[in-house]
Every structure is written in C-alpha cells, then in structure tokens.
C-alpha cells in the first residue's frame, strides 16, 4: 500500500494551518513526521483518516484518489490511527474499549464475549503485556491505556499505522517493547507514520523523516543520511546548538520540606526537601506513584499522615487553594482533564489562579489582567492568533505552554511540574528549560516529574527515585547515570 498526500491545505477560520503539504508513505517503512507544536501534523493525519475535511489537495492510495467519510472507512481500507490524545471511555472496561465498534457478534446479534476475550488476550500477549480485561480503563495509568490503544489497532488488518506521539506517556521499558512491536510490524510489511518530539527515538526507529514548517513540507530525508542538528534546523528554522541548557544553580533556603508523607496503599513514608533555586527531578517507572504523591501534597487528593513545611513553617495544605496561597503551583500531567478549560479562552485559563490579585474595588481590573496575560503569552511564545483563542483549539504543545503560563503567572515559589515537556517540540522544550532556569535564578524551587530519563539526567540538580510508592533514594545529578536510576526505579539498591 502506498499513500500519497499532495498539496493538502487546511485552515481553521483565519488560521491557515496547512498550505501545501506533500507526504508519502508506503508499506514496510517507518516514516517520521516532524514539526513544531502546531505545525499541523495531527491535522494532516485527521484529514487522511476522514476526521477532518481538507480545503484543497488530494489523497491517493495506490494511485487511486480517495476520500474517507469517517474513521471506520479508513480502517476498513487498512489505515489505523492511534491518536495523540487518548480517545477512550473511562467508565467502560478494557475489553469493551478494545472492541468498541468492532464487536464480535454471535447468535441474534448478541455479543460473543468469549471470543472477544480470547482475541483480546491473544493480542495483548503479542504485545507482551498483562492487563486485566474487566476493569474500567479509566483506573489504569496513562501508559497502560496507551498500550491498549496500540493493541486495538493491531486487531485490525492494518496496512498503514499512524502513531501520533505514542511514546509520550510511556516509560523507557515500555518504549522498548513498543519498538519491538514496530519492528515486528515492519517485517510483516506494515507501513507506519511515526510522530514524536523525541529525537532519540526518531533516529532509532524510523527509515525516513519528513519535516513540516509554516504549513509547508520543508524537507524529507532517509534517516540514515541526516543528523539531529539538520532536523532541528528544518523544524525551528534556526540552529539549536545544545539540547539542554547549562545549569548554574545558586541554592537558597529550603523552600519545601515533606516528612513521612503517607497515604495508605498509595505511597508510604515519603520524605524530601527542595531548596530555592533547585530542580529536584522525580524519576521512576510508570505507575510508581510520583503523580499521586504530588497530588496529595498539593491538596487535590487526601493523605493520611506526614508534615509539610513551606519556608520552614509547617502548613496544612487541604485544597489547591491553600497551596496556591502558600506559593505552590502544580502543572498536572493530564492537561486535558485537569490542566485546561478547553472551551475557554487562553486568557481565561492563564489568569485563573491569579484572578483574585486583579480585583480592585471588588471588580476585576480588566486592563491589568489583559496586560498580564499578553505578557505571559509572549514570554512563553504561545502560538495563537490572540489571547481570545480557545485553549482547546491549540496544538498539544501550545496547550502545555498555556498551563505553564498559568503557574508562572501565579507567582509560585514552589513549582511542581508533572511531565512538563510531554508532547512538546524541541524548540518549545528548550524554551521551557530556559524558563525553568530563569525561575530558579529568581529563587523558585522546582520539582519536576519526568518519565524521560534523558531529560532527568540532562536538566536537574538532584534526582529522587520512586518505586511502588516509596522513595528509594536520591542521587545528585552530576553523579547519576542511566544505570543507577534504573536500578533504584526497579526496586534495587545502589551499593556504594
């Protein structure tokens, strides 16, 4: 199978996203599609699979022009799409999710549960994962849910598989097994479109790289004939000499001190502290409980025991509102669910935690508020036509920047960032790192949860490793390496 997209154009209102995009993929190749946040990668794939209509251009499959009306049609002709944002049904079980709209029917149109269960087991085995079939999918971690999405697409007779940032929520180990699967599929002649912002992966797994910028296809190379710097230059239009900026931290007083923090059955006896100007990274395997610790700390979830001190004072953070008052900010890992109001403007999202600060004589000082929002949009280079754009219409990376802007704006002195660069392009990533540097220079303490080991090792001062809800140990970043972190993350001990 060979898919050719020619001269595709698409605009949303005045926002011209795709101008003239050409893209070709065929069976047996893994083809990387690269581009900054908001370059239009997901949009292009939505057009291919019939979820969006293009304004112009044509799509040829094996030389024949096609236009799919919906995702099901695309699937029937062999094109499966694993979306960037999870599209599943939290309340429904894993099995129900896997077979939605592909139910196996028995007598009288009734569901054949036995066969579906067998099928599901088979495909999960192929992926080498063990996932219970009868639990609601929403109770599983993001990574596990992603695995199920992949399993789903394997059940169809797929000829071309689109993976839109499949690894964003996966741990190193899972990414390894994902790559095994990709290699296996490739051997079976399946073609794949692989979208990711992680350079390392691109060079490890793909055969060809196509780069989009400003609505155009700017370059396309065989992977073997190109290097990271060239790709970055194509994507951002300039050279980014170094991936991670240097850190020259100047530590101040201890900002946050957490002691014997426990929530029965979730995490146990967790103690750590962060100083002003420091970046403390939390590493661990997916589902280790890092997110749960921070949620409880911030007052979203409840905890059973333990103490929290902010600037040396013991505090009681019962709700996020208390935390914000004490200068704590929290960028949640799931921006769609808890980070953003998708139907509200960028402005209404950014100023929400700070809104009480703009009240003058009981009313919101609109001018000051607007200036504040504009300043943050500029500072974080959010790509949007105006501050009144809906947050939900932004690309994933730009949405992430909006959430960050919100917490930077609220003047947090202790900033908890849960996967801050998930789904963010290299250029924007670099901007986020620079921003973190700037914040720590101003005395902000940062806790960064990251599943990207490269990032943890490349841009932090200290690494805390969590395993099954317990803190296994801390390593100064300069003494750390991949092996040490992985040893702790899998429950091992470091022997000095």
């Amino acid at each position, binding site marked *: 199978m060979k898919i050719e997209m020619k001269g595709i154009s698409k605009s949303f209102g005045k926002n011209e996203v795709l101008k003239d995009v050409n893209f070709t993929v065929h069976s047996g190749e893994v083809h990387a599609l690269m581009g900054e946040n908001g370059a239009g990668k997901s949009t292009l794939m939505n057009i291919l699979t019939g979820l969006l209509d293009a304004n112009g251009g044509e799509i040829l499959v094996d030389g024949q022009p096609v236009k799919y009306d919906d995702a099901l049609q695309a699937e029937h002709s062999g094109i499966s799409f694993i979306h960037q944002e999870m*599209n599943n*049904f939290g309340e429904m079980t894993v099995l*129900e999710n896997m077979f*939605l*709209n592909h139910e196996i029917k028995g007598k009288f149109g009734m*569901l054949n549960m036995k066969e579906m269960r067998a099928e599901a087991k088979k495909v999960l085995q192929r992926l080498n994962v063990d996932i219970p079939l009868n639990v609601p999918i929403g109770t599983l971690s993001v990574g596990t849910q992603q695995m199920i999405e992949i399993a789903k697409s394997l059940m169809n007779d797929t000829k071309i598989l689109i993976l839109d940032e499949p690894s964003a929520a996966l741990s190193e180990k899972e990414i390894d097994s994902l790559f095994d699967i990709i290699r296996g599929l490739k051997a079976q002649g399946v073609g794949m479109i692989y979208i990711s912002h992680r350079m390392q992966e691109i060079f490890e797994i793909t055969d060809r790289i196509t780069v989009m910028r400003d609505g155009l296809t700017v370059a396309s190379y065989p992977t073997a004939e190109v290097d990271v710097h060239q790709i970055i230059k194509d994507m951002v239009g300039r050279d980014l000499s170094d991936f991670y900026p240097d850190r020259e931290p100047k530590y101040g007083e201890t900002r946050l001190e957490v002691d014997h923090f426990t929530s029965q059955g979730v995490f146990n006896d967790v103690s750590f502290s962060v100083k002003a100007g420091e970046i403390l990274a939390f590493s661990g395997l997916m589902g280790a409980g890092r997110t749960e610790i921070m949620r409880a700390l911030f007052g979203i979830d409840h905890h059973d025991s333990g103490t929290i001190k902010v600037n040396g004072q013991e505090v009681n953070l019962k709700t996020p509102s208390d935390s914000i008052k004490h200068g704590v900010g929290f960028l949640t890992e799931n921006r769609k669910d808890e980070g953003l109001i998708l139907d509200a403007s960028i402005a209404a999202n950014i100023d929400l935690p700070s809104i009480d600060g703009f009240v003058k004589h009981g009313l919101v000082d609109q001018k000051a508020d607007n200036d504040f929002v504009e300043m943050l949009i500029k500072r974080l280079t959010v790509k949007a036509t105006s501050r009144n754009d809906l947050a939900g219409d932004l690309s994933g990376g730009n949405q992430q920047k909006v959430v960050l802007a919100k917490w930077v704006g609220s003047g947090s002195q202790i900033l908890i960032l849960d996967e801050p660069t998930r789904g963010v392009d290299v250029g924007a990533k670099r901007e986020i790192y620079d921003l973190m540097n700037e914040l720590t220079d101003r005395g902000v303490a940062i806790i960064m949860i990251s599943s990207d080991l490269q990032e943890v090792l490349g841009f932090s001062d200290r690494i805390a490793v969590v395993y099954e809800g317990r803190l296994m140990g801390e390593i100064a970043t300069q003494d750390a390496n991949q092996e040490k972190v992985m040893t702790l993350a899998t429950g091992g001990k470091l022997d000095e």
Partner: protein
Amino acid sequence: MNNSTETQTKSGFDFGKIVSKLGPLLALIVLVIIVSALNTSFLGINNIMNLLQQVSINALIAFGMQFVILTGGIDLSVGSILALSGAITAQLIVSGFSPIVAFLIGAACGAVFGALNGLLIAYGGAAPFIVTLATMSVYRGLTYVLTNGNPITGPAMNDSFSFQFLGQGYLFGIPFQVYLMVLGFAVFYVLMHKTAFGRKTFAIGGNEKAAFVAGVKTKRILIWIYVIAGFLAAIAGLVLTSQLGSAQPDAGTSYEMDAIAAVVLGGTSLAGGKGKMSGTLIGALIIGVLNNGMNLLGISSFFQQIVKGIVILVAVLLDRKQAKN
C-alpha cells in the same frame, strides 16, 4: 466478649461489602421492610399486584429514558408523547379502526415523535434538554388540538375486549401490563447489555467525541435511542388509555420526572455512560412502593411530597457516597 466483638467486626465488614454490591436494591428492601412493618396489608398478594400494576407505566417509560440518559441526554417530552399517542389510538378506535391496528399505529406514532426528537438533537446540535422541552410543548399542544381538550372515549373502546385487556386484563391472576413490563425489561436488558448497539450507547455517553473518532455512527444511534424512548412512552400511553377507558388530553403530565427519578435512583449517572437496566427497574419499584406505601399508611398528600423528595435525596446521596468508596 472479645470473641463476639471479633465476629461482629468480621460480619460488619462483609455487610459493608454486601451493601455496596446491592446498591439501590438495598434502598428498596429497607423501604419494603419499613412499610410492611407499619401496615400488614402491604405484602398481601392483592396489594403486590396493585403495586406492580402501578409501577408498570413508569417502568416502561423509564426503560426508554435510561437509554437516553446513558447517552448523556434527557427526554422531557415522553409525557406528551404518551398523551398524544394515546389520543391518536383512541381517536382511531372511536372512528372504527380495530383496536389492534390502532395500537400498532399509536405505537408507531410514538416512535415517529421520538425520531423527530432524535433528528433535532443529532443534526440540530442543540441540547436534548431544550429540544425535548420544546417538543414537550408542541406534542402537548397537538394533543389538545386533536382531542379538542376533551377526553376521547366511546363504546368502541369500552366494549372491546382486546382494547380493555391491555390495561385491565389479567393472565393467571397477574395484570397483563405487568407481563408487558417484564417483557420490556427483558428485551431492553438484552439490547442494552448484550448487543453492540448497547455498547455504542454507553460509548456515546462516556465520551461522544471519542465515539465519533472510533467510527461510531453517533447520529444514527442517537436517533434510534430517541425512537426507543418515544416508542416506550407510546406503549405506556396505550396501557394508560386502556386502563382508564379513555384518552385524557393531559395524561402523562410530569411523568418524565418520575421516569428520570427512577433511572437515577437505579444508579444511572445523569452524565451518561454508566448504569444498569436492573437498577432502573428497582428505581421504578422504589417510587412505586413509596407512593403505594404512603397511601396505605395514610400520610397526608401534602406530606407525601415532602417524604418523596427526602427519600429520593437520601437514596441518591447514599448511592453516590458508595460510588466514591
């Protein structure tokens, strides 16, 4: 002493588990125990039959309502559809149609009114609440126009065995409409929990956008769901017309609220995507026992409203509390 405490704790623990498993059934059981303790005739066979008969109309409407609510929608027009379908049927019989044919046409009309709701919701892009609020008014107005504000009745209705049997007949000592309720339960239980259609219903309620992305024909399914709601409301209307021996222009007023209450008491989430058919039956029974029980206990009608509100509140709040644990 020590020993007994231990046993108690243990059985206490098991009890807690049972409680959360039973869910709305527990509320029903508690209610039945209270009422039967206060009034001995409650558990008499005659009263049980009365009760089931009283419940059946609300239950039939609630079955359809549950599908709608599972998709995250709501149908306020069912009471009006009930009245309009009943009036059409009665008019047909009075004008000389055979009751069976009239029943079929009446039921089909209900399905058509439901389809109209569905079309407006699926293609109009307006919220089900406001669409069905509007059609509630339209269908009710049509009922008044058709009946000219007067009940429709006549010897053609009340001398016909097959007409009367639907709402007044007994089979082996059990009111015929109770069989209808049981049949309706069985059919729609299977549809909801054992077919692909049911799965898609849940999916639309769980996450309509994701369902669309997964290729579910959401519009078509939505339309069918409102057809089901309209059809069942019409069936309830036919039963009521037969039972009363006449089609009332204001029949079914505010029945939508009782149906919604039954669905929610049964543990179905108004946000859609979560619920069980058995719960809705139990919900309808709770409301039935409440009405019947309060009458038997001679509670003044002013206080009945207060008690009913409080029982609904308590049941729903308990259910939500359990859901959280």
